[in-house]
């Protein structure tokens, strides 16, 4: 807490809230944009201690704050970050000023309320990644739904009512059982404090049901294959900034949930369900890829490609080895950067063409070279081109997968090829396709404002692509500890759970996983 002289995480969570309250009293739309931009820059500055004072090589939580909230009920205000959450917090904060910039002319009415929603959203998202108290986590997790709902429902596209309702119903319905699981953990473990809950062992039958309840909430958020249908609808209808937050931050929470809660609290159940979850992940990778191939709407295409990318992410998580989980975290980070950037660019081109159809945005290469330059960079990264950031994540996940099982590895490979197919098809049409859409319409190339919000993301894309070492150094200690804990506790539970449930399958899976894990590292 005292690393920077002030409680960094609390400041990061509450500063946007305070800014939103002040913003409420401002009258003019233009003023509210400038104010929010200034607030978001301050927020970025407030986050600097996270970069400066984060201790590399330490697996424990840092910047910890712990204040009792309702001691009678075991509630505390407990925050902290480790290698798993640090990058997500940073990404959330980095995305905020870009969202303000990319909505500068995109949002034409009620700009003040829009920015209030953005700020609320940011503080809830940071809260989700920092909370170490289960109920505090749940509070942030649910609180984020309302501003997101409003972002889609008020400022969205033509089918915004349908999309926003679907988003809200899906995600809230999925997380109601999460609350039951949380309460059950309280009764079993005696506290809501995650750092203490992590150290307890739970019987296998308990883990079995708790995992199912949590996994439903997280799988919907990711979204994993059969639960993904809200995502394309929400992405297509949301305003640019909404899509960016959705893609960069919101859907990462599902994967984060698997890592932070399922892996630490229900390790044995996680191992038991791994084959099913892996199968769903691969289904998502292939399904997302094939559906993306058939899209004529740019935004929809990117939305379905997110399903595929997040499939890689969950695939990596359920490999339970260092490379896989590392890869999953890198996919989370890189997908956030690249897809966020692509959604901003779609917003930018939409402001020119007023259409998201590929057919209305073709042949831009000659007329908008800077735009296509950035678009090409992000497209290539998205399909996993070596030397750019997404490659790092996908490669690590695939290394992890092959390390575990050749069978799963070969099943996932077509997904990577599909990625190349749909992204290149899109890139080729947008660059060289005929007839060229901008011909004779006087579309301008990127403005300074657009350069400002794209350039940092482009730099990150190349930097992480060429030198992922620093990112991995942050991630590794926490991941190693996570996996080590999980291994010891999964084995411990399986022994005590010998007499109940589907023990044979469990033991076999465990054996297979633990043996191959040992030889591959």
């Amino acid at each position: 807490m005292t690393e920077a002289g002030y409680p960094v995480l609390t400041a990061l969570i509450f500063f946007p809230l305070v800014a939103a309250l002040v913003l409420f009293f401002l009258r003019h739309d233009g003023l509210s944009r400038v104010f929010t931009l200034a607030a978001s820059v301050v927020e970025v500055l407030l986050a600097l201690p996270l970069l400066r004072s984060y201790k590399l090589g330490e697996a424990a939580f840092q910047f910890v704050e712990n204040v009792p909230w309702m001691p009678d009920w075991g509630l505390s205000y407990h925050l902290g970050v480790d290698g798993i959450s640090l990058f997500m917090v940073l990404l959330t904060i980095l995305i905020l000023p870009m969202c303000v910039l990319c909505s500068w002319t995109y949002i034409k009415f009620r700009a003040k309320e829009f920015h209030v929603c953005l700020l609320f959203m940011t503080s809830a998202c940071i809260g989700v990644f920092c909370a170490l108290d289960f109920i505090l986590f749940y509070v942030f997790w649910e609180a984020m739904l309302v501003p997101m709902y409003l972002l889609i429902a008020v400022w969205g596209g033509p089918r915004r009512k349908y999309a926003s309702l679907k988003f809200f119903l899906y995600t809230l319905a999925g997380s109601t059982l999460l609350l039951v699981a949380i309460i059950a953990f309280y009764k079993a473990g005696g506290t809501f404090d995650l750092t203490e809950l992590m150290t307890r062992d739970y019987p296998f039958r308990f883990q079995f049901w708790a995992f199912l309840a949590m996994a439903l909430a997280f799988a919907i958020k990711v979204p994993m294959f059969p639960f993904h249908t809200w995502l394309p609808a929400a992405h297509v209808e949301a305003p640019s900034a909404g899509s960016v937050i959705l893609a960069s931050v919101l859907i990462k929470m599902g994967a984060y949930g698997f890592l932070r809660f399922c892996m630490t609290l229900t390790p044995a159940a996680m191992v038991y369900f791994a084959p099913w979850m892996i199968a769903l992940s691969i289904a998502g990778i292939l399904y997302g890829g094939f559906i993306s191939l058939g899209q004529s709407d740019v935004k929809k295409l990117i939305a379905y490609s997110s399903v595929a990318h997040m499939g890689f992410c969950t695939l990596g998580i359920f490999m339970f080895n260092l490379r896989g989980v590392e890869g999953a975290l890198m996919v989370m980070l890189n997908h956030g950067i690249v897809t966020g950037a692509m959604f901003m660019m779609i917003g930018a081109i939409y402001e020119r063409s007023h259409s998201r159809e590929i057919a209305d945005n073709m042949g831009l290469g000659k007329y908008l070279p800077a735009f296509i330059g950035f678009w090409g960079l992000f497209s290539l990264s998205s399909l996993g081109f070596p030397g750019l950031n997404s490659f790092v994540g996908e490669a690590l996940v695939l290394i992890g997968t092959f390390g575990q099982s050749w069978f799963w590895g070969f099943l996932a490979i077509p997904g990577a090829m599909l990625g190349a197919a749909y992204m290149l098809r899109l890139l080729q049409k947008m660059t060289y396709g005929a007839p060229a859409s901008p011909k004779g319409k006087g579309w301008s190339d990127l403005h300074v404002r657009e350069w400002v919000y794209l350039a940092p993301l482009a730099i990150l894309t190349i930097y992480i692509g060429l030198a992922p070492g620093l990112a991995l150094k942050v991630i590794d200690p926490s991941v190693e500890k996570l996996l080590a804990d999980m291994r010891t506790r999964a084995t411990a539970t399986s022994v005590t759970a010998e007499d109940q449930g589907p023990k044979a399958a469990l033991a076999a899976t465990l054996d297979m996983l633990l043996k191959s894990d040992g030889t591959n590292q």
Partner: protein
Amino acid sequence: MNFDLLLILPETYQLLVIAGLFYMTLAGRRSIDAGRWTAAAAGLGLLVTIASLGGESLMFYGAYKIDGVSQFFKLIIAFGFFIASLNAVRQPTLAEPERPDYFLLLAMSAWGLMLLSSSVELITIYIALEISSYSLYALIPLRAQNRGAAEAAIKYILFGAVATAVSLYGLGFILAGQHTSYIAELAAKPWSFAQAPMAALGLILFLAGFFYKLALFPFHFWCPDVYDGSSNETAAYVATLPKLGAVVILVRLAAMLKPGLEITTALAVLGACSMTFGNLAALAQTDVKRILGFSSVAHAGYVMVGLTAATAKGLSAASFYIFVYVLMNLACFWVLCHLSGDGRNVKLDDLNGLHRRSPALAAILAVAAFSLVGLPPTAGFIGKFFLLTSAWNQGYNWLVIVATLNTAISIYYYLNLVRHAYTEDAAAAPIPMAASPAALAVGLVLAAAVLVVGVLPGPIFNYAAAAGATLLP
């Protein structure tokens, strides 16, 4: 008999208010507006009630008890009465000559509820219940030029009379079976069917009267119709305060409801049916008051979750939840009453475009609706959280799961309120509004209270917790 006027100050004060209003109904003079006078008096009454928190005594030959439970509930009743009478001051459908009578009946009903929260003897309970009910029977038809209101009143009286009769019948069984009517003595007796069949049956029948007040399934049929037929302001009162009276008695009787007893299981089953039925029926409604009617049926079911836990925490959770319920419903009705300038019923479509016409009302409605869903960081969430946590591993885990699944069902219709207010465009001839800046300010205070209680439930919950601890140490 130890009698101390200071201890029963809230109800004595309320009686004085009633006397004042009674004088106004007799006097032809109309120089003072009965509504404003009642609201001001109720505001003072709230302070009086706060001042009398913390008393402890047993009076009137053991029939009347001043303790943590009674004072906590009296506080909520005084608060609810203050807001409800403030809300009723501007009432377009109330004829001018009837104004003093209306507020007299309102105050009388609140007085009955205050007596109810201190009664610890079955016959006293019965009489207090009747005082509060009879005033309501007369209150509901007071909606000028409206046949629906008369119909609603008849439904309410008929249902009420039957429920009361059943209740009285049950009281006879209990007296015959257990030979006492004092709760403290009853709590020590066996209540299983095997040991005391007559008394157990009697208790269920006796509780029927309170289920009727609470609108718990299958005693809920009057609820949406009465909300629908009575004026918006009356509905705001009927939807909130009488539930307090029912819950306080259930909380007091909960000492007899050990987990595993047939009666407790019956409560759990009724609770589960109530929430499921209420939520499913609400999905199909288009009138906002009917939606809130079915929503209150569902919330009656949620309260049962805390009662079946039969622990001090469960009882305090139920008491706290009913407070939260009153708070968020008052906020919701506040919006309806001020949205409907001419006193007509508000349909879902009337909410269209509210966020442009009146951003403050839309915001209050959104906070109240999300709180009714149980979404953090509102009071509705923390209330539900206490309920579910206290009931887990107390023998009715299935009820907890049913309650959470019901949350998922209920999202749709609560969200519908917000959706109409925020995403639909206003109709060509929207409903005329009558929201003064002062009214908006009170509404915003209510909404802020919903949020503050949600984030920092401690101070109020501690009162509820102390109340629970006195009943089940």
